[in-house]
């Protein structure tokens, strides 16, 4: 982002916060706040506010790229170092990001480009292959990956409610403003869990560090070969059911070639027969490979989440009702996940026209308006679309 784009975006954000009605987090006076300024790399931390109006005024003055608040409740939220804050409770928070779910669409809409030599290519790359300078990474989202993220949120809620029996009256789902969702549980009993205990919950959700033998996996010697003879019996409880379910969906995707064949699978026949997994045909050789299969399957068809967000005691998460500096979209509390449209509902900026120069942009639909694909052109776009492209790093303001 060049200097004039930077000034422009900052002014737009300031204006938003001048009139915004922000939603206060529960027990706001106990939270640590963090603000990220446009053009800066590190967050200003250790801030504390006693009411949401103070937050709004601070944001209206600075026009920050992000406003986030701690998952911890502190006695002294503004003290330093961290231990002096004296945390006494934590929200159980989860971060589900479409970026980490292995969907195929990514190669179509994520790309890198070099502003100097004007080369670009699909996927992720750090340096330009021609001039070796740092490239701009442009990551977009499409309905396919956002639907996958939604599916993972639903799976997570099912596990929390159905398997772990957590009270879900105090749960908040929010669209993170870009590629994913945050799920927060404000329950008091859960709030007493330490990071080590939250780690157990995360490992449970991610099916990590499974002992395959405890879940019915068994190898047998057949004709001098080690063959996986059985998998989990579904009646053995929720975990076994979940393992079978995600592995089934994963293998379906592998069979349909929607996913590449992973190195630990060495098929010796059909992977699935009449909708059931044929364990002996998978060619798995060790318990470690079983673990790998389960973790990959879960990442694809179960819940893919960032464990650090849940376990870290010092984590800050974006505040709902703030706007995301990478998109200009609203961090939105989602009441009805099925109905929520991430390309429409969080678009809150106006449609006043502005001129932008776009390096390159794939086809994006925002507020039902198709935008692009663009390539090296100056366009007059509604403000929300212009900000989206500038913040994503593929456009600059003109004039």
């Amino acid at each position, binding site marked *: 982002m060049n200097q004039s784009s930077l000034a422009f975006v900052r002014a737009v954000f300031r204006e938003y916060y001048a009139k915004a009605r922000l939603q206060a987090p529960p027990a706001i006076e106990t939270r640590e706040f963090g603000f990220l300024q446009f053009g800066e790399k590190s967050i200003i931390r250790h801030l504390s506010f006693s009411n949401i109006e103070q937050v709004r005024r601070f944001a209206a003055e600075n026009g920050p790229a992000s406003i986030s608040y701690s998952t911890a409740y502190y006695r002294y939220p503004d003290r330093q170092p961290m231990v002096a804050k004296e945390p006494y409770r934590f929200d159980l928070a989860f971060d589900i990001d479409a970026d980490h779910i292995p969907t195929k669409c990514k190669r179509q809409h994520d790309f890198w480009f070099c502003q100097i030599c004007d080369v670009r290519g699909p996927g992720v790359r750090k340096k330009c292959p021609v001039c070796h300078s740092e490239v701009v990474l442009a990551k977009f989202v499409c309905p396919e990956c956002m639907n996958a993220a939604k599916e993972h949120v639903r799976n997570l809620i099912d596990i929390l409610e*159905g398997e*772990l029996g957590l009270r879900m009256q105090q749960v908040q789902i929010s669209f993170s403003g870009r590629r994913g969702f945050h799920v927060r549980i404000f329950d008091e009993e859960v709030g007493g869990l330490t990071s080590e205990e939250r780690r157990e919950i995360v490992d449970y959700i991610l099916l990590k560090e499974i002992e395959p033998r405890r879940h019915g996996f068994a190898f047998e010697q057949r004709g001098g070969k080690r063959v996986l003879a059985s998998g989990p019996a579904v009646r053995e409880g929720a975990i076994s059911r979940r393992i079978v379910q995600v592995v089934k969906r994963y293998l379906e995707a592998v069979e349909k070639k929607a996913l590449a064949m992973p190195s630990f699978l060495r098929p010796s026949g059909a992977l699935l027969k009449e909708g059931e997994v044929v364990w002996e045909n998978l060619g798995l050789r060790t318990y470690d490979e079983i673990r790998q299969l389960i973790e990959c399957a879960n990442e694809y068809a179960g819940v893919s989440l960032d464990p650090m967000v849940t376990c870290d005691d010092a984590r800050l998460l974006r505040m709902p009702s703030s706007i995301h500096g990478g998109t200009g979209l609203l961090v939105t509390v989602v009441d009805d996940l099925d109905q929520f449209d991430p390309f429409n509902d969080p678009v809150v900026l106006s449609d006043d026209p502005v001129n932008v120069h776009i390096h390159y942009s794939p086809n994006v639909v925002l507020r039902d308006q198709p935008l692009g694909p663009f390539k090296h052109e100056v366009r007059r776009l509604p403000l929300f679309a212009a900000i989206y492209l500038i913040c994503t790093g593929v456009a600059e303001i003109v004039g």
Partner: protein
Amino acid sequence: MTGYGPFSTEEWIAHFPFSKEAREFLEQQGFSISTFFEFENKVVERALERVRDAVEQGHVLSPSLESGFKYDFEVETLSYPVAIYLVASLGNRWLIERYASAESKRVFACLQLKRYPAEAVLQLARGGLEWKWVTYDSVLKAFKVPVIKYVKYAVRIGGPAWKLVNQRVEEGVVLLSYEKFLRFISEGVRLRILERCSQPAPQLETDVYKKSIEYIRNLLSQTMRPIAPMPKSVDPGAFPPCIQQLLRSIEEGRHLPHAARFFLASFLLRVGVKPDRVVEIFSRLPDFNRKRTEYYVRHIAGEKGGKKAYLPYSCERARSYGLCSMSDVCRQLQVQHPLQYYIRYRRAKRRESE
């Protein structure tokens, strides 16, 4: 305490002096602990024996379990709160942890040997430990523990066998077999004693009390050796704050969870401390078990099992286990791994001295 089969209330109370029945018995006696320190008596004698067993062997022995051995159930029962009083009033962290762990081992041994009916065990958990949230399913033959409660105790026991992901979970409860639940209860006993000892008990002025305290101090000075020093090739001053914190915890005699032990052992091995020395450092832990620790340390060193030497957790992973001390120095050095800290810190120090 009737209807649970062929065992007497007296035996039950002697085994489990924290049970509801024991509490009722103690209330009937209507004594205050300080009265036991007014004259020499068998209760204080037995209390000191409990502490001695704990300090010397890490396991309180149960005379009520020895066949043919006559024991006085009143002395057995009354000596439990008296021993806790002594341990709490000394306020030595190592002793507190050691005693709590030793009593919990005694309870576990009693439960394992006597194999009381599930209903009685349930009663012990609900009444004795005040775990109102535990139930027993006689059809599934399993104890039902709500997930959040389970996690609280299970992470302290540690190991893959206790990971939530390896349990049978249904609708918010973990189903535990009879055998596993016995271990679960004993962990509850340990935490309960720790809690009771966290409030320092007031010192008394009587001779019996002073003599008892003197006796325990003596025991400690004979048993608690100073922490094994680091070899010369290793520079403990360059250890990252998280590792120093763990070493301090060991020095203070604190109990360390499973993940912390792995983290510390893998770090020390990597910077060049020999497995035997690591075991010596761990020997200070209140629940130290030489055989198990040796196996474990050699395993991490890659000498046993999969022959794979383990690396310590990265900073990020350590943080997720609550092991990071979130120091500003780490932030300044921009380290992502505790070994990186050690290397950078040493390099910086060497440059300075040059």
